[in-house]
């Protein structure tokens, strides 16, 4: 178990390191990027950039300096806004992104799993057909289409919710709905197929042959086992909710990190792009680690050093 965790941790650090390195060298390759010293910009910014990135030193020293910055949680100054640091940008966007993202994650789990269970238990009857039809739509339609449609219908036409911002609690509905739509459908489909597969296993027949009550059979034997593959996708789901927030925050004009990121891309604010990418990567690695811990708690086969199922 310790060995498993250590291995996962090592993998995560390696990935993080790979991302930082990739980001650094890609940004270095950008013509007119942050690491080119002769450029037209506010002298204030140029000075800050020089102080931060040691542009007069050799490449490897710049790299080390940047790495050092990242590991002391200092992502440097903005490339476009004088006096603004990437840390400040992230700090200002974090509450919004975190609130919307967590609500979306919550709705993915709290709605997706029960919907999948209902569908699996009513296999080939109307609740199954209904859930699967909705889930198929949800998986096929891109989130930004759902977002704009929802924005048009519910905010502009029916005026049930505000068209932008989350100052009003009703403002959360559409962004959370649009952000979670795809993954909610995905999780519902996955839960359904996983539960159906579990239902066909021999040990479920054993559970029935022991005379257990239907509730016990479903929750203690069925769901527990079918949730294992689900736990493994929660990491990627969290990752995609984060990146999905780029467009959602843009469409609903939410002042989150994703919006800063998209703005940074449009403005070619390279240091912000770099910093926010790395911030995302760290968040994701932490999520994946948490998911691993959950997985460990759910599947005894790993605990005892057995191979992955």
């Amino acid at each position, binding site marked *: 178990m310790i060995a498993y965790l250590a291995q996962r941790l090592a993998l995560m650090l390696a990935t993080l390191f790979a991302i930082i390195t990739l980001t650094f060298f890609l940004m270095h390759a950008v013509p007119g990027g942050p690491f080119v010293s002769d450029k037209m910009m506010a002298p204030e910014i140029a000075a800050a950039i020089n102080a931060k990135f040691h542009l007069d030193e050799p490449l490897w020293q710049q790299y080390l300096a940047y790495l050092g910055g990242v590991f002391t949680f200092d992502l440097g100054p903005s490339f476009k806004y004088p006096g603004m640091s990437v840390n400040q940008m992230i700090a200002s966007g974090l509450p919004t992104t975190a609130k919307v993202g967590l609500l979306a994650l919550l709705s993915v789990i709290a709605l997706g799993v029960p919907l999948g269970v209902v569908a699996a238990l009513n296999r080939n009857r109307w609740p199954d057909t209904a859930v699967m039809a909705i889930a198929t739509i949800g998986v096929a339609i891109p989130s930004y289409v759902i977002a704009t449609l929802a924005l048009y219908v519910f905010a502009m036409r029916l005026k049930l919710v505000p068209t932008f911002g989350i100052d009003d609690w009703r403002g959360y509905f559409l962004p959370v709905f649009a952000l979670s739509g795809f993954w909610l459908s995905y999780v519902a489909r996955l839960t359904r197929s996983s539960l159906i597969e579990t239902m066909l296993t021999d*040990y479920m027949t054993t*559970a029935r042959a022991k005379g257990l009550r239907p509730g016990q059979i479903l929750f203690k034997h069925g769901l527990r086992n079918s949730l294992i593959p689900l736990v493994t996708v929660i990491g990627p789901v969290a990752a995609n909710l984060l990146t999905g927030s780029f467009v959602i925050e843009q469409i609903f004009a939410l002042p989150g990190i994703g919006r800063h990121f998209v703005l940074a891309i449009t403005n070619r604010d390279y240091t912000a792009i770099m910093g926010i990418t790395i911030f995302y990567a760290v968040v994701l690695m932490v999520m994946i680690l948490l998911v691993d811990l959950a997985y460990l708690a759910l599947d005894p086969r790993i605990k005892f050093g057995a191979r992955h199922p």
Partner: protein
Amino acid sequence: MTALLDVDGLTTSFFTRRGEVKSVRGVSFRVAAGETLGIVGESGSGKSVTCMSILRLLKTGGKVVSGRALFEGRDLLALDEDEMSDLRGNAIGMIFQDPMTSLNPTLTVGEQVIETIIRHRPVSRAAARQRAIELFDMVRIPSPEARLRAYPHEFSGGMRQRVMIAIALACEPKLLIADEPTTALDVTIQRQILVLLKELQAKLGMAIILITHDLGIIVEFTDRMLVMYGGQVMEEGLVTAVFRQPAHPYTRGLIAAIPNIADDNGQRLRPIPGSPPDMHDPPPGCPFAPRCPEAMLQCRVPAPMIQAAIGQSSRCWRLHPDAPRPVEQDGRP
């Protein structure tokens, strides 16, 4: 003597996209308290479906079309689901073929035994645990207390099957259905498990239905036997009687296929030529007729069970008093 289990005219089909699969067609048999009934037959002959119909554990699409299964005078097929689940794991225990997959991988084996006891007996968890330890001891799992806390993947196949037996016997059933309990195990382990079952039967006095492909196991471990083919009972009788003089050509074919018996005639293993019938559209009359060396025109008419000897009967027109003796009698001593 009234039977513990009296199955009459059991007919079960699976309704699939490709149509109706008539898996079991009018199977009747009885099991007396404390006796061991063996069921043999080729793969797909309907042995498992027969048992699962009785326990009402058919996979989706499976339906009992008609028939009765009286257990202690109550028709299992007419009970409501609550009454049925009160019987399962309680008065009727079941063991499956593959011990590697029939235990839940995410629960300790102890929990899987204990939950069965708690389900059927009004006892505390501690008492159920105590009982589970006794059961593990009874099925000879070493250091039972410690093993209760282990997960299935920490056990070998033979040990897992012992756990399954412990679960099946947790509530001292009157009937134990064992569907090929040793097919998935090593030969040496097979014997250990069967001997253990026999011992436990002597101790607890339950009846056993033992499904197997192995006629050797039938001879050694069962009192009466049922030979199934194409979803029907081909022959039924005391094991000694059937082996002394098999009445159905199919039974003769099976016995002739056992190497050491055939060796007496200086012959090698002789598989029965041909393949089992398509259960979507089984042949009219005797399902074995297309492969039978003794088939007659009459064999297209469904045959009744005809008594062949005391305690032995068979579904073969050759036993009809007017029927001619076959020219060549395969596999008869």
